[in-house]
């Protein structure tokens, strides 16, 4: 009996908190479909107009594409540079992991406004003139996602005995490089996917660096959203909901892949 009471009590708290968190999103969703929502509890009517306007706007698709390009570019750079470093540190020089643990905190420690001003100063006078281009954003985004990539992959590696796996593969005739590709990478796939989805979610929603470093010269999704803030609340709500839908989709895919991996390892293959 007491167990049931506790059960309901816990459920009530959890659902209340979830409702509170979901309420602004639900309100935004309803607002994005409403014709007009002013002094009444419910909207005057519902319409797809704002979504039709949004998806019909070439600037939206361009901004989305730009966001995707810089995010994927930064992510690719991050994965290509960081995975070998983490694997080598883990396999051959574990002491480096201690220093890497500190280095990855730097993006969190320095506020975006401070680092973006620094970056602008460096690159405005530099021979490498990348201010206002996608390149500076890719470089900056790379630094932002370092902690996410590092943490996801090292967590994944902690469940794998890298040393013995590589040694076993080498004894069976594989080179060290091939051993990493054939044996280690497939076993940290989950960590890599987690890094990909978290990083993409963060980068697609990034505004401060994009606005200060490139602004409208290379308009990303969040800069586009910012420029549309005065247009119509319904329109920007449709934009925010579209953005949320993408992030949600990423999360569902990541979760599905993770669950699939776990199921596969606990059952025999067919």
């Amino acid at each position: 009996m007491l167990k049931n009471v506790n059960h309901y009590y816990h459920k009530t708290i959890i659902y209340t908190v979830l409702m509170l968190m979901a309420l602004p999103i639900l309100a935004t969703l309803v607002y994005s479909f409403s014709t007009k929502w002013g002094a009444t509890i419910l909207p005057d009517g519902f319409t797809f107009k704002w979504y039709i306007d949004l998806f019909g706007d070439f600037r939206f698709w361009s901004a989305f594409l730009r966001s995707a390009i810089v995010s994927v570019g930064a992510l690719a750079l991050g994965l290509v540079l960081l995975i070998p470093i983490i694997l080598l540190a883990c396999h051959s020089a574990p002491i480096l992991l201690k220093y890497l643990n500190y280095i990855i905190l730097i993006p969190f420690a320095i506020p975006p406004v401070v680092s973006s001003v620094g970056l602008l100063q460096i690159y405005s006078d530099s021979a490498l003139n990348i201010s206002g281009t996608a390149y500076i954003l890719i470089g900056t985004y790379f630094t932002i996602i370092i902690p996410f990539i590092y943490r996801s992959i090292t967590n994944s590696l902690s469940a794998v005995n890298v040393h013995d796996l590589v040694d076993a593969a080498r004894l069976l005739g594989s080179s060290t490089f091939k051993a990493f590709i054939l044996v280690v990478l497939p076993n940290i796939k989950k960590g890599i996917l987690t890094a990909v989805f978290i990083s993409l979610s963060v980068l697609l929603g990034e505004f401060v660096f994009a606005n200060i470093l490139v602004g409208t010269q290379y308009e990303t999704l969040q800069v586009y959203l910012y420029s549309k803030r005065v247009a119509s609340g319904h329109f920007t709500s449709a934009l925010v909901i579209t953005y949320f839908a993408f992030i949600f989709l990423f999360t569902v895919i990541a979760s599905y892949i993770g669950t699939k991996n776990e199921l596969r390892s606990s059952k025999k293959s067919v």
Partner: protein
Amino acid sequence: MSYVQVRNLSKSFDNNQIFNNINFDIHKGEFISLLGPSGCGKSTLLRSIAGLHNVDSGNVYVDGEDITYKDVQKRNIGMVFQSYALFPNLNVFDNIAFGLKLKKLSKEVIRKKVLQIIELVDLTGKENYYIDALSGGQKQRVALARALVVEPNILLLDEPLSALDAKIRKKLRTMIRQIQQELNLTTIFVTHDQEEAMIMSDRIFLMDKGNIVQQGSPIDIYTNPVNKFAATFIGNYNILKKKFSLKYFNLNCQTAIRPEAITLAISNTDVIDYDYCLNGRISNVQLLGNIIRYNVKLDDFSLNVDELNDINRMRFFKQDAVKLYFKTKDIQPLKDTINEF
């Protein structure tokens, strides 16, 4: 000529000498155990032979070829790890086929060889199972099959049974020995379990602090320990201090006596063949299954005496006054220095 020759092999990590000036020979098809306590350097020695550690000096020869600086992947050495080191992303078949695929053999040949070896290690029907779905014993058999299927020149076993429960361990050690004899495969087995080493090996190399302190057949190692370490590590020897050895057996060194080599009796009429007789009193009796262990208190020290738990034998009880009978050949003088065989 020996099949494997290890000559003056030394290895240190950051000024810490792991093993020093190791020399031994192994014949083709021999099963050798490197036996010793944790940290004695046996696993590092094994990994150095495999090429997974660079050595500071010395050489390793296999079939007359110096492989000391040969690439790991070209040595054709099979190894089974304590952690299994199986590839979790691959199923049983693909784990075993891994080495064969790297050799670029045809699919037909790979399939035939893998299925043969799966049958040998008694894993038929488990080909499609992923590693996480197997028990510890099955994992270790996959690891063994993976190492064997590439037909290695030498098989190295790095404490392969230590993570398994007692029942599986007993079953697997018999299986490993049978397969090794069937394939006539030169094998080096690392263990800290003296029973395992005794049962499985043709010869045992007993290691302590980076040195081989004694090598020989299991019976030789067991009956003739060269020093205190060997006597205490192998079996449950009674070690007598120098002063007691001198007082009772006229030997001016430490001595070791096997508990089962001492005969207990109430009076000397029961024992006809002995060289020394001492008086004592039973202070403790332990039943160890097929053995009864008596702890006998003498004037200056205590001794353990093991007797077969046989219903027809005389039983002794706590506080019984007894006589202990010894034969000279069972009193083993111990050398104090290492590296003397």
